[in-house]
């Protein structure tokens, strides 16, 4: 890291994070799911399998990414909020991220 510092997260702080069922958040979100096309995809599953942290499992705001039984990453693009975090945050630039086709995807009701 360029500036050399490393943030440290106090283990107590981490333990203070509550468990959240993301589905309970998503139930209030309106989607127009494009069943014909996934706009987020893994470029190379082997890269994910070799990724030690798999931080996408945590940082995606809607848990689009999940680990399958074989250690690969699956993408539940239907729940995507199109924030772009995975494209930028994947340490291996292994997420192929496009915009959903016009009219599809999330449609905020309040924003």
């Amino acid at each position, binding site marked *: 890291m360029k500036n050399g510092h490393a943030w440290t997260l106090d283990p107590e702080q981490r333990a203070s994070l509550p468990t959240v069922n993301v589905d309970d958040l998503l*139930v*209030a979100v309106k989607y127009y799911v494009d069943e014909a096309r996934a706009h987020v995809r893994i470029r190379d599953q082997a890269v994910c399998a070799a990724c030690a942290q798999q931080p996408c499992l945590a940082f995606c705001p809607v848990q689009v990414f999940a680990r399958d039984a074989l250690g690969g990453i699956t993408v539940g693009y239907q729940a995507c909020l199109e924030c772009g975090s995975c494209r930028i945050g994947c340490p291996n630039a292994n997420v192929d991220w496009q915009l959903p086709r016009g009219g599809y995807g999330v449609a905020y*009701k309040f924003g």
Partner: protein
Amino acid sequence: MHTIVAIKQVPDTSNVRINPETGTLIREGVPAIINPYDVHAVELAVRLKERFGGRVTAITMGPAAAAEALVECVEQGVDRGILISDRKFAAADTLATSYVLGSAIEALNAEDPVDLLLFGLQAIDGDTAQVGPGVATRLGLPLISYALGLESFDPVARRAVVRRKAERGVERLETRLPALLTVEKEVAEVARAPLPNLIRAARYQPELWTAEAPLRFDPDHIGIKGSPTIVGRAYTPPPKTPGERLRVAEQGLAETVSQALAAILSAGVVESLGPVPVTPQQEVSHG
């Protein structure tokens, strides 16, 4: 040829939730959409226009905001959108609604003869499936509900063969035209509309018909006055009382499962357990 599609703007009931604390319906922010069945009715009309030429008119009765739904129809390829909107129509039940739509369709037919009338099977907010059959009956038109697809369509000979979903299978029905079809989603797969359609729709303003103009609807047949049914009471269903819990650990596997199967049977939700014997249906030919 001229096709009229009747559509409805509905609250997206799949996005409706109940407040877990109060048990009341959360109405705030429920998006308004075109009734999903109607989208397929519009698509079928547009496909037929592409094949046989002519025009597609979309009509709807609803509040001013329903104009958006008509604009979406124009995006899909509809030529003309008519919004029938007036406070005098408020609280209409299906009888009053079919009067209004039927009268409007008669007027449009006088202007430009109609070959086909399409309705979505039912609206997802009310799920009644009554307005399409009601309009067909008023207009004295042949009705085919639960239409799954057109097997043939001949606007010149004025005949069509329609596949219809019945209780235990699919009927093939020949009808004369004009006819009124209420359609299932299978009737036409929605294609991605071309950009010029969206550009046209971006400036499109649907025509507004009120209770007085351009048609004068009979005040005794619209709104509350024209509606024999009223809502006596509306309530959110009480939260379900959780049912019994059988524990394998306590009762043993075979006994638990046997009890569960008995419960399903006595609830009457399946006619019998095990594959239902199939009675072969005779191929029917008529006339």
